[in-house]
């Protein structure tokens, strides 16, 4: 950012008591609270952040480029490794994009199961977010509680597809597997457990004075500015913008369910926290509805054995736990590889907002804010 702007901003800041020269503090890439290998170069005035420079790329594996040399089914494996805490959402986004390119009809049962998986994934991802966010702010018990519940979801996924982290749980045109017997009962049981546990988390945090002091009015950003910075997902909704792909451009079976999109009012860390806590509830609501109304039928649509979409390009987005994850795919219609593969990663977009959010706050708020925008470096760097 231009120098004069920095100095103008410094003039606004209350001056700290002792003068030290502006200090540059390197946070990361090995720092416990950056949720991975993120590096932030902080310019500090005392303990106050004057400016922050986010350095990404430490986890870059070239997934987008790799994808141009894999066939369409193999790419699903790669998408697992982008947002590794919400692999099913990424799977879904990719598969739906290809289906859109190929104009394949997905059977209703498959769409239902996809929705269930996706929402379970959202709950799991939010559990991880809640635990680490609270941990960053020093509430370590919540961390372990949240992971305890996440473990239940991982068990469900393991039972469904055999994997606990990188599920590879979707196929173009449908699903690889039908749900195992008894799985639906377990999901319902989980929903009940989760409801009571949510109350537990909220008891620990929502009205805790320290939690309020740490999160209220920290990193305030209003709706228009959030949109201008390209924020998405709960981070955007915390600022009062009711954008949710599930509602605005329904995919999978979302148009058949009844759910609300929670939004915040002030756009501070506390609002983003509340929005995600409410999303837990809405996800459970969707899962219950889907389990109740799960239709019978095939789980795979009519897809050729060799997937070769017609020439053309398309963009399709789904709502991952982190935000709007979009896939742009171009096919030349001849080869079995995509011609061009590009991902709009929500974590990456949200990370753009970080320097804006942390400016003027203290170092301790930086970790709170990193937690509050909920990033996964695998997705940021791809």
């Amino acid at each position, binding site marked *: 950012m231009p120098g004069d702007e920095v100095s103008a901003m410094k003039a606004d800041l209350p*001056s*700290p*008591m*002792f*003068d*030290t*020269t502006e200090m540059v503090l390197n946070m990361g890439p090995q720092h416990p609270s950056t949720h991975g290998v993120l590096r932030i170069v902080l310019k500090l005035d005392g303990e106050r952040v004057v400016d922050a420079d986010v350095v990404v790329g430490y986890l870059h594996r070239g997934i987008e480029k790799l994808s141009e040399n894999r066939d369409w089914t193999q790419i699903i494996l790669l998408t697992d490794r982008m947002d590794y805490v919400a692999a099913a959402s990424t799977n879904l986004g990719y598969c739906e994009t290809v289906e859109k390119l190929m104009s394949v009809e997905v059977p209703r049962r498959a769409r239902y199961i996809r929705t269930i998986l996706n929402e379970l994934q959202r709950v799991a991802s939010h559990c991880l977010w809640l635990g680490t966010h609270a941990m960053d702010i020093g509430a370590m018990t919540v961390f372990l509680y949240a992971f305890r519940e996440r473990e239940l979801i991982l068990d469900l996924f393991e039972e469904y597809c055999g994997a606990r982290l990188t599920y590879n749980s979707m196929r173009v045109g449908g699903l690889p597997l039908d749900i195992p017997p008894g799985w639906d009962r377990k999901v319902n049981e989980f929903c009940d457990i989760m409801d009571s546990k949510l109350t537990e988390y909220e008891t620990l945090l929502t009205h805790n004075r320290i939690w309020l002091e740490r999160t209220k009015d920290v990193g305030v950003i209003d709706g228009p500015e959030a949109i201008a910075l390209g924020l998405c997902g709960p981070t955007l909704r915390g600022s009062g913008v009711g954008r949710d792909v599930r509602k605005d451009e329904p995919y999978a079976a979302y148009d058949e369910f009844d759910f609300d999109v929670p939004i915040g009012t002030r756009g501070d860390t506390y609002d983003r926290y509340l929005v995600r806590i409410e999303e837990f509830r809405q996800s459970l609501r969707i899962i219950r509805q889907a389990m109740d109304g799960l239709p019978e039928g095939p789980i795979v649509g009519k897809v050729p054995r060799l997937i070769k979409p017609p020439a053309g390009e398309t963009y399709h987005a789904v709502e991952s736990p982190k935000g709007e994850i979009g896939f742009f795919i171009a096919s030349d219609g001849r080869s079995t590889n995509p011609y061009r593969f590009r991902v709009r990663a929500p974590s990456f977009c949200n990370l753009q907002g970080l320097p804006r959010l942390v400016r003027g706050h203290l170092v301790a708020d930086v970790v709170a804010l990193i937690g509050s925008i909920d990033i996964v470096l695998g997705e940021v760097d791809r």
Partner: protein
Amino acid sequence: MAEAFVFYGLAALILGFAVLVISTRNTVHSVLYLVVNFLLVAMLYVMLGAEFLAAIQVLVYAGGIVVLYLFVVMLVNLKRPPETHQDPRRQTRLGLALAGAVLAELVAIIVYSSTGESVPAAAPAEAGMVEGNVEQIGMLLYTNYLIPFEVASVLLLVAMIGAIVLAKREL
């Protein structure tokens, strides 16, 4: 006997650390020696039967003032060694000589004038003196010396405000 040993030991340590304070290059080390020096002086106070003062010495001097020094030493984050530039006109040697001379004279006066009376410093203290040390000081502070005491508190207030004003970056 034991008292003499303790005294000489303490005196030697006090003077030794004092010399270290003013002779060490590294300012932080210098501050550390100062702390040790103050603690030793506090022990001297205990020997003299002034436990309250000893505690105050540790609390205020060692625990407060010197911490302040330490803060300042750390904040004054020097880019170049502080003692490079030397003004040729500072008569350091003369100062040293004078200080030595005055010390000699003072010692002469003290020793010479004290030979007559010889009041033992460690005279068995009266019971009241040792036991009610804190109480006695408190009584004096709040009766005879009430006004100086209040003035001292105002002085501290002024110093506090002054320090805050000085340390603020812009007035």
